[in-house]
């Protein structure tokens, strides 16, 4: 960078305005007030507003929120729908069997929420406490001190042309310097990825594995609506070797959130998570919920599924990781917001002590990891650590093992199973059967582009493509030739297309459609796709997701 950039100084910069980042900022400001110790805290968010990029089921376990903001009810938190009914179904192609709800999936005391709206509310609380929140600015680069510690982040340049040149309205990025920089980017953070490498944060821990969650929000007929009902399914439409399941949550105002989570360790390159989700809705036990309703929103997001054994080293000089970018999601519970918030609150306490002790920039808040070990978060993730890896054996052995692990061993088994990286799991197309998905009917099932339309996603037209290829020739040479172009199917937003031009195939990247789910960055077989932040405020504009 030759360009001289403007600099702003803060005590703490938080990258990402989701539950983890906002909980961190709130806790820091609370401590600052309690101890009468002045602290400047800034939150950067790449979405156009807080909540714009937040997508989750979501059933929220209020444990962390109770600790952070015990008066949340009086303060108007949008936790409006208590869970009243919990169902767990096993689906075959034609039938549905009700199974006992496994303990981690019991939701008594939890709330069905729009996590985006919860974040909007958290942001209001944070601002009231004096946190500076800047939506529309993407942290695009980690800055380092000469001695190697993290100095802060730089926001991305605005107004570069497709070719990378400075356009007429070019505005260079800003440097935000901080004593501590908190990375709360959510699953598969693009800066976190560079930190893993730079500080070797993943050495000695399991690889991270992921799932993709695809969600739709529906307004259903009052007759089909039962506020507070939670349904989870496993089984059909995916085969027993594939990790996948659905959720159907009935919120307030005739709204129903329906989603499908599919493990990205699947092997058949012809599989399309999007189509599985569409097909799932057509099951005889499911479809009537949506009859006569209208779909009002759509989106997708990757989640971390590795759990306990995949948690990296969390701190490094000048900063630390909180929330799902560190992988704190509890997969058997399919919940990560409570752990994200708890990790942020714990990090805030460690960082606050460090700063109050007068430590200058670039120190490592090592205390964060040890504090975390004594919280419920650590215990919770430890207990369920063997359940996801057991699914490597297929559905029934895994369910059997899960029962044993949960009821008999209570998570205290003297062994820990390990993960294999998702991008290595695809088999060559020649060894797999193409899957014939049914055509969308435009009522219950839809095509990808009309779905993406409802995510309200957009990116300024003339900017460098944020889906970068390390080797531009590899997609046709490897992805298409060997794996039949799997990115066309795993991308839930129709970003990747192979198009024929003058008799040869070419990968067309429709980056404007991107919903920032990060699946391509995870699943590309040669790890050739590197997802970087586009211009700030680009990406989806999810309402009520």
């Amino acid at each position, binding site marked *: 960078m030759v360009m001289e950039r403007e600099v702003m100084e803060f005590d703490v910069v938080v990258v990402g305005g989701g539950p983890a980042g906002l909980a961190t900022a709130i806790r820091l400001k609370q401590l600052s007030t309690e101890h009468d110790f002045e602290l400047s805290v800034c939150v950067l968010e790449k979405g156009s507003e807080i909540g714009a990029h937040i997508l989750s089921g979501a059933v929220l376990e209020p444990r962390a929120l109770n600790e952070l903001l015990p008066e949340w009810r009086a303060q108007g938190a949008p936790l409006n729908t208590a869970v009243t009914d919990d169902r767990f179904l096993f689906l075959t192609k034609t039938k549905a069997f009700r199974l006992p709800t496994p303990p981690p999936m019991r939701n008594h005391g939890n709330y069905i929420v729009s996590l985006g709206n919860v974040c909007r509310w958290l942001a209001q609380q944070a601002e009231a406490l004096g946190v500076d929140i800047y939506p529309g600015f993407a942290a695009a680069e980690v800055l380092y001190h000469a001695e190697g510690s993290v100095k802060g982040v730089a926001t991305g340049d605005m107004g570069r042309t497709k070719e990378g040149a400075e356009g007429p309205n070019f505005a260079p990025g800003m440097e935000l310097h901080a004593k501590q920089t908190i990375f709360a980017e959510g699953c598969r953070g693009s800066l976190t990825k560079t930190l893993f490498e730079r500080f070797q944060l993943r050495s000695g821990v399991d690889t991270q594995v992921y799932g993709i969650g695809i969600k739709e929000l529906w307004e259903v007929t009052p007759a089909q609506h039962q506020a507070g009902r939670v349904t989870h399914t496993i089984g059909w439409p995916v085969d027993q070797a594939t990790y996948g399941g659905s959720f159907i949550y009935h919120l307030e105002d005739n709204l129903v959130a329906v989603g499908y989570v599919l493990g990205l360790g699947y092997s058949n390159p012809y599989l399309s998570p999007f189509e599985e989700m569409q097909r799932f809705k057509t099951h005889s036990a499911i479809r009537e919920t949506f009859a006569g309703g209208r779909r009002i929103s759509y989106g997708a997001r990757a989640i971390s599924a590795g759990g306990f054994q995949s948690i990296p080293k969390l701190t490094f000089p000048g900063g630390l990781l909180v929330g799902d970018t560190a992988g704190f999601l509890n997969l058997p519970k399919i919940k990560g917001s409570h752990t994200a918030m708890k990790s942020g609150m714990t990090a805030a306490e460690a960082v606050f002590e460090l700063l109050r002790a007068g430590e200058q920039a670039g120190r490592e808040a090592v205390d964060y990891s040890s504090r975390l070990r004594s919280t419920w978060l650590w215990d919770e993730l430890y207990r369920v650590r063997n359940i996801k890896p057991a699914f490597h054996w297929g559905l029934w052995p895994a369910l059997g093992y899960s029962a044993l692990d949960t009821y008999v061993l209570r998570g205290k088994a003297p062994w820990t199973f390990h993960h294999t990286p998702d991008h290595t799991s695809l088999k060559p197309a020649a060894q797999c059967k193409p899957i014939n998905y049914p055509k969308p009917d435009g009522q219950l099932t839809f095509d990808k*582009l*009309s779905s993406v*339309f409802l995510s309200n996603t*957009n990116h300024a*037209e*003339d900017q460098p493509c944020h889906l970068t290829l390390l080797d531009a020739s590899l997609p046709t040479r490897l992805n298409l030739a060997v794996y039949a172009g799997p990115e066309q199917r795993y991308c839930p937003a129709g970003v990747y297309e192979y*198009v024929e*031009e003058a008799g040869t195939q070419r990968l*067309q990247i*429709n980056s*404007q459609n991107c919903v920032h789910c990060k699946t391509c960055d995870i699943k590309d077989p040669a790890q050739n796709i590197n997802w970087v932040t586009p211009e700030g405020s680009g990406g989806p504009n999810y309402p009520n997701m």
Partner: protein
Amino acid sequence: MVALVIAEHNNVTLNIATLNAVAAASQLGAVEILVAGHQCQAVADAAAQVSGIGKVLLADAAHYAHMLAENLAPLVVGLAANYSHLLAAATTNGKNVMPRVAALLDVAQVSDIITVVSEDTFVRPIYAGNVLATVQSSDQIKVLTVRTTGFDPVPASGGSATIETISVGPDAGLSTFQGDELTKTTRPELAAAKIVVSGGRGVGSAENFALIEELADQLGAAVGASRAAVDAGYVPNDYQVGQTGKVVAPQLYVAIGISGAIQHLAGMKDSKVIVAINKDEEAPIFQVADYGLVGDLFKEVPALIAALSK
């Protein structure tokens, strides 16, 4: 009830959009037309021929030559007491003048109506056509602009209205016309064009887009493109029709080699007539096209150009 339609013209010919406005007005009652211009007797004569017109009011003065709102609005306001409704086509002129008229009368305007429900209730698109609002006016005089695609024009002939020359108002002296600057190419502006010819990825290359342009010129149309064609680099960004590009609602939209992704449909679905030419008969564009032609665009488009030039 008598409605007054403000004629749109260039002092020589009556703009056809006026006939759409007359169509809306005639659903409200008797219709009269105001022709305000300079040396515009020919326009008044043409207006008198329009089917269903009771009377043409002619106001001829130099300061009406260019429909300047500052001069035209007071003239209309002075006539308003005789009318229940004042209408103009929602052209740039109509949109410029009518709200000023409404404000001077202290009444609301209902913009861009597409349906007359009753004498005080109208349907108009809002939110870029994503929502249709039915609105009721509580004002004595209703000021309306009329979206031309919402009403079929009344016949330009068959009428025999009387022409009454009315006294003109003063020049307000607030604004003066300096000149026109027609777009350099003869091609109209995409957003305002009456006919749009758009190409998609099926066109195949930037060079092949010349074919789309040739057809557009044959039709006097603007050239548009789908996002796929823009992304593929065939044409610049400002050609793009659709969600993130322009929203167009021409009389005729010709989609060539465009599959019809919803993002594109969002930008052109309010067009009056849609024609699609595509080799894939399953393409979603055919679900919205009034006239579909399944075939190879490289064969069909040259044939179409030839047929049109006959």
